[in-house]
């Protein structure tokens, strides 16, 4: 066990005028996760520390936060990867509710905008299922893995500069349906993504791909949507 210093950005809107940094020293193994240290602080040192976590296994995406200057899931980040001294901030670009908890509503609003559900104008075949070949499925397989943690969108400088930008996560969600051979809503989604706050605000910075805890090639998906909009309007 080694001593680790966690410097956490705290903010309680009911009593703090502005955020401040607080340091905690905890003992942890190299293979311990940042979430283990945060849980230790919350359970045994300072119960007022507020953060989201649920599954704690990289599936629910609720504990995304900025760890040592980079968006990560606290449940997937190990001390041996991020170092002994760790600085933790809430995700950037979203309003802070308290400590490490941000208001996800603006993010979810963008998500809903892209019609993230199956749209079909034809009834299902009589044998029950809408079949799809392996090749057809492979086109959007990567973007089915999104867990809506917001790590990508809140790592994007275009989103920091303009909160109205729909963001990489919503584009990934749209990509999942646009390239689904069974879906008929692509034209409506491309129309939404082609507006001023759609895909064209992407500056190909690549932070989103680096931040994605699921390893989704986010920038590639955004690029494919850009290309689809361009060639569908020619």
């Amino acid at each position: 066990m080694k001593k680790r210093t966690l410097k956490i950005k705290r903010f309680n809107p009911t009593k703090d005028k502005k955020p401040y940094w607080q340091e905690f020293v905890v003992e942890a193994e190299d293979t311990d996760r940042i979430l283990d240290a945060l849980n230790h602080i919350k359970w045994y040192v300072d119960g007022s520390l507020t953060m989201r976590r649920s599954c704690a296994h990289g599936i629910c995406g609720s504990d995304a936060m900025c760890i040592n200057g980079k968006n990560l899931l606290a449940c997937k980040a190990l001390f041996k990867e991020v170092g002994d001294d760790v600085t933790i901030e809430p995700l950037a670009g979203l309003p802070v509710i308290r400590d490490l908890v941000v208001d996800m509503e603006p993010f979810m609003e963008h998500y809903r905008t892209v019609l993230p559900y199956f749209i079909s104008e034809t009834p299902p075949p009589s044998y029950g299922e809408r079949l799809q070949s392996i090749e057809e499925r492979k086109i959007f397989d990567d973007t089915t893995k999104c867990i809506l943690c917001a790590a990508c969108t809140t790592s994007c400088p275009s989103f920091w500069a303009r909160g109205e930008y729909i963001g990489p996560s919503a584009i990934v969600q749209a990509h999942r349906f646009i390239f689904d051979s069974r879906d008929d809503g692509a034209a409506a989604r491309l129309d939404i993504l082609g507006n001023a706050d759609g895909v064209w605000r992407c500056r190909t910075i690549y932070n989103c791909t680096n931040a994605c805890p699921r390893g989704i090639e986010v920038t590639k998906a955004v690029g494919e949507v850009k290309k689809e909009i361009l060639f569908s309007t020619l």
Partner: protein
Amino acid sequence: MTVISSTKDFVVRTATYKGGVGHASWILHRLGGIGIAVFLILHIIDIFMIVLGKEMFDFFLFIYHQPIFRPAIWGLMFGIFYHAVNGVRIIIHDFFPSTFRYQREMVLGAWVIIGILVVLTVGMDIFNWITYAGSH
């Protein structure tokens, strides 16, 4: 609040986020763009000086040719080369999305090309400056 509410917040977040070579490349692209825009404004003002007479025009040219302006010219060369080469890289990524898998290699490749171009042009500029210094 973490929400980016001001230019200062944006600049601080941009400077502190550890986004890798893509993030650094984007910052340099923007700085290069700002440099080119500043040059164009100064250039328009400089050309406009002819309206105030030949003497004023020549006076501004004389000032621009002083050694103190050479680093600014080199910075302009860097900005132009950076904007051009990095812009081509981004166009390639946008038209061929599968190239995003090689983003890091392509950024580093662009930096090597930009570095060679800047070294060559700055080298030529210094050579000319030394060789023809007496004739100016």
